[in-house]
């Protein structure tokens, strides 16, 4: 007798489309997904536990290794949390350098997300095209910080060093060229008919679901929720810049992708304004902080807008030079938590399209 039955398909952990080491057990009815069980933790290094045996300054390089695609934003989130705990005032020039390098980091992350998403749905050219600009940005970051990905440029009380001569001009030149490059991405990827057919009305999320499930970043804003911490609760000097928060309407894979493209334009705007404004600001890039950092007893929670969403740091100090407890609210981890419900009812071919549209970094998911 003929009968149908559900079966389980294993996806990952070693699969290029998982963007790292991540496994999904898909329960399928034919080609349709009935249930998906995400399994993470393959990259868990115990950063929160390691931090308890490090001094406050020694924790900074660990934050790079969470979201290694936008390391500067992770750095800034952490050092701002410690500064909040200790009440340190950061020199204005350092604030500008944090914004410039932070937004440049966000650009590298979004450019990569755009290119990799094209690859996820089968467009190899878009992927290579995006790497062209990413390389230029990486060169600039390398010149500024000495490192391409694990930047560790922020310090508690400022940044590691001032910019070298001519660096800002080089950056300004690249930012002048960026709108043209973004136009190219739109021509090659966004406007592509096959790409749109693969992503439009796939993996739709309502605003209520996004808020209820604590999703953040482009995933939240693609559903039309205007919540960007740079605007909602400006930290650092973000209230000095004129920029917009791009929103989507359908909350589908295409909107999530396109939100990132639009955010790139806004990051370019912020960097250009910051380059103009920093010319007027002279002075040190480090506050006067003691050699041994011993924050007063207490606790702090501070969150900023990273490229993937809201990254938050919860630090408990017991008055010694090492954090008593460090917890990181990682946007990729929480955004991934809704994957099961997002995949249900879609086809196997949509799995990679939906997973890619969340834009996860497994270093951050597993921490």
């Amino acid at each position, binding site marked *: 007798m003929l009968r149908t039955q559900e079966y389980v398909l294993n996806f990952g952990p070693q699969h290029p489309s998982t963007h790292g080491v991540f496994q999904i057990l898909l329960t399928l009815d034919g080609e349709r997904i009935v249930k998906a069980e995400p399994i993470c*933790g393959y990259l868990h290094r115990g950063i929160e536990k390691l931090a308890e045996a490090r001094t406050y300054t020694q924790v900074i390089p660990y934050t790079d290794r969470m979201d290694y695609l936008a390391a500067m934003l992770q750095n800034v989130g952490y050092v701002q949390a410690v500064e909040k705990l200790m009440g340190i005032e950061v020199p204005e020039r350092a604030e500008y350098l944090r914004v410039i390098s932070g937004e440049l980091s966000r650009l590298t992350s979004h450019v990569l997300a755009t290119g990799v998403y094209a690859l996820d749905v089968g467009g190899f050219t878009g992927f290579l095209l995006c790497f062209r600009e990413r390389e230029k940005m990486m060169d600039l970051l390398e010149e500024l910080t000495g490192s391409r990905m694990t930047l560790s440029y922020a310090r508690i009380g400022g940044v590691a060093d001032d910019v070298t001569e001519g660096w800002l001009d080089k950056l300004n030149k690249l930012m002048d060229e960026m709108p043209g490059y973004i136009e190219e991405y739109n021509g090659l990827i966004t406007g592509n008919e096959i790409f749109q057919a693969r992503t439009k009305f796939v993996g739709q999320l309502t605003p209520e679901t996004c808020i209820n499930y*604590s999703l953040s970043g482009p995933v939240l804003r693609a559903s039309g929720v205007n919540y960007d911490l740079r605007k909602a609760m400006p930290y650092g000097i973000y*209230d000095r810049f004129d920029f917009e928060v791009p929103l989507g309407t359908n909350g589908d894979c295409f909107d999530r992708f396109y939100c990132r493209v639009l955010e790139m334009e806004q990051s370019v705007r912020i960097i250009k304004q910051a380059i103009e404004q920093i010319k007027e600001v002279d002075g040190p890039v480090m506050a006067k902080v003691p050699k041994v950092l011993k924050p007063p007893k207490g*606790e702090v*929670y501070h969150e900023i807008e990273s490229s993937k969403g809201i990254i*938050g740091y919860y630090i408990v100090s017991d008055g010694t030079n090492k954090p008593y407890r460090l917890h990181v*609210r990682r946007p990729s981890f929480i955004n991934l938590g809704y994957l099961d419900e997002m995949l249900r009812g879609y086809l196997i071919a949509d799995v990679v399209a939906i997973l890619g549209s969340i834009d996860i970094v497994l270093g951050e998911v597993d921490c």
Partner: protein
Amino acid sequence: MKEITAAPVEEIKQKYAYVEVNEQQTIIVPVDKLLESMQGLKDEFEFDYLTNLTACDYPDETKLEVVYNLNSIGKGYTVMVKTVISRDNPEMPSVFPVWGGANWQEREVYDLLGIVFTGHPNLKRILLDDKFDGYPLRKDYQWESGRE
């Protein structure tokens, strides 16, 4: 600088007589009233976004503190809510029915600190292996190697 609206901590305190507020404006809720007050915070004070959920171990006081950071997207304010549970019997209600965002975050807390959230739909280890012994973020956890 844009002024960030302060959370209506005083009103919350008036509405729920059992909550305490410390000098950092953190709300401390007894664990048996947790679900009731969390639902109230969501419905009446528009804390619709559970941004962070974590816990911290204090072996000297034989307690575990569970920390919730709530944001209000509409009103633009934030608040930290805490509850204290005994270290010997780490069991407390899950806030998953109030905010779906607690799903993986509670699993993470269970995984690393061993707090059992009753009413959670799928409470099992998330980062560590299912066969892993112990809860590494507890202060008395001993690991085999590693530098001090």
